[in-house]
């Protein structure tokens, strides 16, 4: 190794031969490795730029917090028009068992039934012996029951949280909200008709019902039912300008929290599902029809002194005046004879067309599965025209009647009735002349001022209405004299109607204080009066001075007397 040249500082060295070659190879390898590394780092840098700058135009996604916690209740709430809770879902524990884990089924069953007293020992034991991995023992326990079951410490028993539908208003809204089955599916009422919406939604469903009014109607209706020993009844309050149902009661009702325990009669919705021959309240439609068709004016009248005989029927008057009656008097005294003659002048075809226009021949447009189909005569003969003029021979639901009266008094505009809160103007279809509506309002006021509906005269609220006392069709042919359907349908304040109220009592019995009468004027009218008095301040209807000249002028009816001389009455 002596031939290596001496390396001295500051002196460049030239290498030759093998040494030079080795250095060259080393340098080339270094450059190659450097290039590879540069490429790799460039790729990494490129990827970083792409991720941070190009893909999201901001920082790479930071692990974000899960969206704000929100309670999922399985089924949306239902609230009334003021936002008060009508139906909600609460989490309740349900008890189930895994039979394979239960050591001693007989003993477990015996001990469990000491805590859950509504369970029977043999049934529980059979369930615990079942060759399955899962059996329900009891759904929806109270916290106290859960505590006591836990305290027993039986192996194999477990709890599972379930959402249970709760109706805080219990029976007050029974027929409106309906109820759900144990698996939270809507079975009747709004729960059924809005099942999909409630299931998906988190926003509460706003009903048009006002709980306060609903309570008043239910209370007054129940009072009249017990007073007249009736079997049931229904009460409806409608907003005439929007078609909103402010109250809808059907008695007897049920507690939707304990839906399993109710009878068919309790479940039956008399307001919308039941169809009845409504009786004299139909004279509102009959008179409106004749006035609208122009076959009579308030100056005309009919001879109501003799009963009408057709086939084997005799049509007579209940409050018989036995003389010539003007149109207003026919309405005021509820004359059947006059009504029949009025309808015959209009004719069968036009009557049928009119009833169709008023919506009396189809089921209601209402968000309930329980809607009755009207019983329409087929074929529609002249005898039907006669009976329908005073409310027999065409059965409709009370809701039909209330909606029809709303149409008559609101200026003749038919709007679909609804159970949902609506905002803004509701468009409708004009089915009556505004002038007909105005005359009908005056006539309805006449009935309350000195006709059959005097018991409904709530001081200051200008109630106008019509009584109805129908004999219910008996089991076979003909009508049962003793089983009545007494109703009163009213609009208030009648000079500018805001609400329509219908009270109908099923099979009231005449009482001593009512001199044996169980007519609409005795049974239903007083309830309407009290409902108006109590509900009007809540509904924002101000009382007026009934003797004020403006009011008297608004309600003036031009009445001819029998001799053709006119006198004003109001």
């Amino acid at each position: 190794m002596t031939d290596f040249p001496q390396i001295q500082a500051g002196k460049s060295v030239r290498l030759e031969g093998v040494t030079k070659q080795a250095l060259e190879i080393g340098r080339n390898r270094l450059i190659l490795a450097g290039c590879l590394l540069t490429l790799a780092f460039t790729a990494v840098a490129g990827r970083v730029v792409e991720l941070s700058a190009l893909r999201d135009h901001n920082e790479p996604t930071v692990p974000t917090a899960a969206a704000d916690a929100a309670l999922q209740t399985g089924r949306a709430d239902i609230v009334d028009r003021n936002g008060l809770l009508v139906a909600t879902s609460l989490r309740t524990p349900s008890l189930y068992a895994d039979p394979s884990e239960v050591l001693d089924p007989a003993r477990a069953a015996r001990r469990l039934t000491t805590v859950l007293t509504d369970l029977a020992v043999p049934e529980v034991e059979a369930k615990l012996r079942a060759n399955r991995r899962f059996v329900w023992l009891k759904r929806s326990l109270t916290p106290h029951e859960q505590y006591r079951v836990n305290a027993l410490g039986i192996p194999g028993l477990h709890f599972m949280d379930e959402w249970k539908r709760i109706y805080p208003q219990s029976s007050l809204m029974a027929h409106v909200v309906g109820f759900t089955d144990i698996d939270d599916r809507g079975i009747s009422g709004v729960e059924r008709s809005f099942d999909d919406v409630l299931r998906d939604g988190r926003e509460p469903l706003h009903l048009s019902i006002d709980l306060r009014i609903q309570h008043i109607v239910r209370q007054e209706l129940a009072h009249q039912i017990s007073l007249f020993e009736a079997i049931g009844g229904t009460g409806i309050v409608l907003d005439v300008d929007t078609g909103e149902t402010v109250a809808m009661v059907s008695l007897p009702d049920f507690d939707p929290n304990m839906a399993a325990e109710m009878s068919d009669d309790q479940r039956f919705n008399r307001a919308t599902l039941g169809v009845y021959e409504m009786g004299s309240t139909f004279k509102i439609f009959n008179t409106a029809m004749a006035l609208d068709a122009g076959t009579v004016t308030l100056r005309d009248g009919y001879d109501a002194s003799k009963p009408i005989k057709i086939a084997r029927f005799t049509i007579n008057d209940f409050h018989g005046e036995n003389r010539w009656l003007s149109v207003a008097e026919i309405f005021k005294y509820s004359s059947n004879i006059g009504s029949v003659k009025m309808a015959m002048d209009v004719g069968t075809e036009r009557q049928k067309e009119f009833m169709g226009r008023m919506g009396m021949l189809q089921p209601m447009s209402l968000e309930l599965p329980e809607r009755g189909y009207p019983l329409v005569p087929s074929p529609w003969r002249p005898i039907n025209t006669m009976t329908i003029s005073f409310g027999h021979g065409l059965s409709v639901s009370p809701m039909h009647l209330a909606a029809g009266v709303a149409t008559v008094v609101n200026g003749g505009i038919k709007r679909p009735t609804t159970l949902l809160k609506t905002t803004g103007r509701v468009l409708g279809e004009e089915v009556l002349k505004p002038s007909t509506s105005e005359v009908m309002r005056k006539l309805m006021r006449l009935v309350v001022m000195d006709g059959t509906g005097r018991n409904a005269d709530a001081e200051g609220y200008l109630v106008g209405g019509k009584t109805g006392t129908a004999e219910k069709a008996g089991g076979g042919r003909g009508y049962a004299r003793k089983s009545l359907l007494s109703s009163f349908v009213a609009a208030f304040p009648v000079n500018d109607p805001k609400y329509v109220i219908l009270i109908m009592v099923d099979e009231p019995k005449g009482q001593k204080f009512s001199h044996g009468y169980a007519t609409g004027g005795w049974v239903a009218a007083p309830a309407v009066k009290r409902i108006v008095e109590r509900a009007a301040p809540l509904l924002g209807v101000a009382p007026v001075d009934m003797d004020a000249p403006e009011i008297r002028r608004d309600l003036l009816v031009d009445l001819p007397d029998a001799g053709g001389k006119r006198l004003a009455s109001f």
Partner: protein
Amino acid sequence: MRRVTILWFLVAACLGVALFLVKYEVQDREEKLAALHREILANQEAVHVLEAEWSYLNRPSNLEAMVRRHLDLVPLDTTRLGRIEQLPIRLPSFEEAGTMTAGIREAAAATDDLPAFAPPAPLPRPITISAKVRR
């Protein structure tokens, strides 16, 4: 050369420690967040239950029974309702009416049956407006 290397070692060590601390801090906070979410849900459910109980206790029939038991309220009748127009003209303010109230007090002292403060009587009859033409 030596110094630079030591500097880089120091930087790397600091970053390592910082990363370690941040990681545990994040984990800690995530746990707290999850706990808070659980708490919020539990509170929401409790509120939900209380709302149900509130509306149960506020049933109109329940309120009515309680009012009957504890208060002297009676249903509103039409004589208790009025309109703004029915209110009498506002009385002059206290300073303005100093002499007037003094006069009333003197009169009260003199006759012994006039109240010291006589509330203005409402108009006997409500003022009505004519029905507006519909539509």
